């Protein structure tokens, strides 16, 4: 319990940090845009907006959450204890059994009647809801950021188009000016009249000034278009990254939801069929036969005790017929598992290698996440 709570706290912190980092990066990209509109140089801003940091952190966070989801498996191992308990005798019951088999059996029966996993199921759903909340929050953040950056980008694309257009018209202008200048120069070289020559020269100087201005403008526009291009590239890769992160969140949510759904259905069905099988027959035989049932009941009980294992097997088989739903869920789970495995190969490996050393696992997960 405390382990789970501390893990959740940990993951919450990670999520908050990841969200802060995402907000920071989106913020950088947005300020770059406003600066650009104001006309100042933004190359440094773009260089500063590095995705690596965000990625490293997102990976760390996701590995922690994946770990948390796998950790639910450990939480649910409590269920199988319950199932085993229903089938076998406790130490005390075996001890009593040495003196009175009947007493031990009736103690076990009583225990089966009291057994219930409803609280555990509720607990499982509660915990899985907490994790789902964490994941959906993150997903929401990712999606809003993606939308923001995308609208930003479409605007910038329009701007860039305008810049390229301006650049092209400048180039055309420069090209058109070339023959004019040559013509003027030629005229000057053949002109003998000083007055006319001075006029032509001043016209040439004028034209040259214009030409230089345009050439300078071309440089400015070229730089602007390049900056815009870099900005767009950065923005695009940020959108891609956000998209990818969102996909990861969706895989996690999907896995968690199908897992929980499957567990609730299967655990519940198993408990109930165990309880039913262990009680129904005995109760009937006792009531039918009436008073002199002690031996009879005992025989019935021990027969059922012996048959429990084979019965369990049969029951599971018959469940396969009736609980088609469970199979469907299992199929869904297989799909979710596959997607999950593809994304979290490393964590699963670690989890399998060291299922119980949770602390150690956490730290290796961190190191790995930071390194990746």
């Amino acid at each position, binding site marked *: 319990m405390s382990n789970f709570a501390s893990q959740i706290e940990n993951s919450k912190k990670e999520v908050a940090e990841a969200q802060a980092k995402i907000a920071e990066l989106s913020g950088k990209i947005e300020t770059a845009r406003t600066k650009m509109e104001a006309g100042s140089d933004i190359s440094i801003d773009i260089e500063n907006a590095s995705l690596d940091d965000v990625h490293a952190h997102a990976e760390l966070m996701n590995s922690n959450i994946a770990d948390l989801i796998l950790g639910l498996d450990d939480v649910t191992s409590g269920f199988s204890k319950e199932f085993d308990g229903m089938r076998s005798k406790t130490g005390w019951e075996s001890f009593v059994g040495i003196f009175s088999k009947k007493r031990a059996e009736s103690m076990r029966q*009583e225990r089966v009647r009291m057994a219930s996993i409803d609280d555990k199921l509720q607990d499982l759903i509660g915990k899985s809801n907490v994790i789902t909340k964490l994941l959906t929050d993150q997903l929401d953040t990712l999606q809003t950021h993606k939308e923001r950056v995308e609208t930003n980008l479409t605007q910038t694309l329009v701007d860039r188009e305008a810049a390229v257009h301006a650049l092209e018209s400048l180039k055309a202008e420069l090209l058109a000016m070339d023959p004019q200048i040559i013509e003027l120069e030629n005229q000057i070289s053949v002109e003998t009249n000083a007055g006319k020559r001075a006029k032509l020269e001043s016209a040439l100087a004028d034209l040259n000034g214009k030409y230089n201005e345009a050439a300078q403008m071309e440089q400015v526009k070229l730089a602007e278009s390049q900056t815009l291009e870099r900005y767009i590239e950065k923005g695009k890769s940020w959108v891609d990254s956000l998209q990818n992160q969102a996909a990861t969140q969706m895989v996690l949510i*999907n896995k968690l939801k199908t897992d929980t759904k499957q567990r609730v259905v299967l655990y*519940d069905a198993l408990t*109930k069929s165990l309880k039913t099988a262990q009680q129904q027959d005995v109760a009937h035989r006792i*009531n039918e036969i009436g008073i002199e049932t002690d031996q009879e009941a005992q025989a019935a009980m021990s027969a059922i005790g012996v048959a429990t294992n084979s019965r369990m097997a049969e029951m599971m088989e018959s469940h396969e017929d009736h609980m088609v739903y469970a199979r*469907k869920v299992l199929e869904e789970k297989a799909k979710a598992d596959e997607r999950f495995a593809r994304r979290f190969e490393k964590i699963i490996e670690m989890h399998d290698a060291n299922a119980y050393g949770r602390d150690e696992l956490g730290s290796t997960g961190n190191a790995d996440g930071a390194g990746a």
Partner: protein
Amino acid sequence: MTKPRSNSKKGQSKAEQVSASEMLAFDHKVLEDAQATRRYFGKFERIIDHLKQVTKLSKKEGLITTAEAKILLTYLLGLSYTFTALSYKFLMANRVGDQASSLLSIDKTDSGFPIYGEILHMAADASQAEKHLKSLPSQKRLKQDMVNHILTEQSIPTKLQYALSQRIYYEYLSKSTLFLPGNDPQGIWISGKKNRDSRSYLIHWAKYDSQTNVPAIYMMELEDTGRKALPRDERRWPRVQSHLMAQSMSSLKLLTIARGFDRDFDDLHPKFMRRFNIGPMYSHKFTEQRGPLRDVLADAKGEAGLDWALSWTVESLVSEDTTQEKTGMFSSSQRELYRIDTLDSKAAEDGATEIARSLILPHRAFQVLEEKNPTGLRDIRKYVVGKNAKILSYK
């Protein structure tokens, strides 16, 4: 999973073939469009209203006692609250189109109710309602935001609508007495002196059965020969409560539950026990059913709201004798023997003294039913909902 069936005769039979094979593959159905979800909850709201009338009618007919009717009505009220809460939860879920917001799953074979998991989820939500209410903006704020959104963005504020539906859902959860997956036993004192003579109690509790996805209400009349009055006995009462909750499963027969209880509590004697199964609900639009009822509902379809039937089963178990059983070296205790007609193989199989089945259905479906008069449904009592929601009972 299945699309709403088309109205043409040909399309319908084809759709049914498809859904018949789908039924084998999947017996849960996810309500995917908003209209279906709304229609589903609207239908249940009406049916639960009818159930209250049916309860009053059965009391008049002497089928159940006044105390039982009162208890039933409280649980039915809880059930209608639960459905209202769920209807808010899923009201906008289809519109948001988020991965995060899940859709309602119902059990489409032999239940017609939402699956157990949905009710468990709701209970988990209810336990955190206060926390959610603190973090969600108030209804007034949300509505204000919606107006702003509509005026400035000139689009439908779907996300805000969803947030508001969730806000109302949590408000509902925190305020109402809901029908939970498990509703713990409560006792009513019936008779007996306050001294050591035996006292009688009527214990009642309810469960949303996880196997059949149908709500079940349990009642048990107990004779208490213990030293301390049961509801005030902190040694026995909590144990009794958890025992009964753990044993309330549709797969256990009443006889099994009663016998087990009798054995585990030496000074408590279950004299009479009842289980009300509220459901399954059959509807031509939402569920798939086999047997004669299917044809009846298929023929009755047409006008919305007239193509359903709800089965209502009352199982009773009565003790007819007692016997003494040795419980130790020197002690013995009283055990109940229940009246079960062992010569009637069906009754012996039922594990109950009597099982009374009835069907609640609207007038249109009833007319078709009378016309067809299928053998399987001949002997059960029918409560027919007429126009103006007036209910008549036919044998």
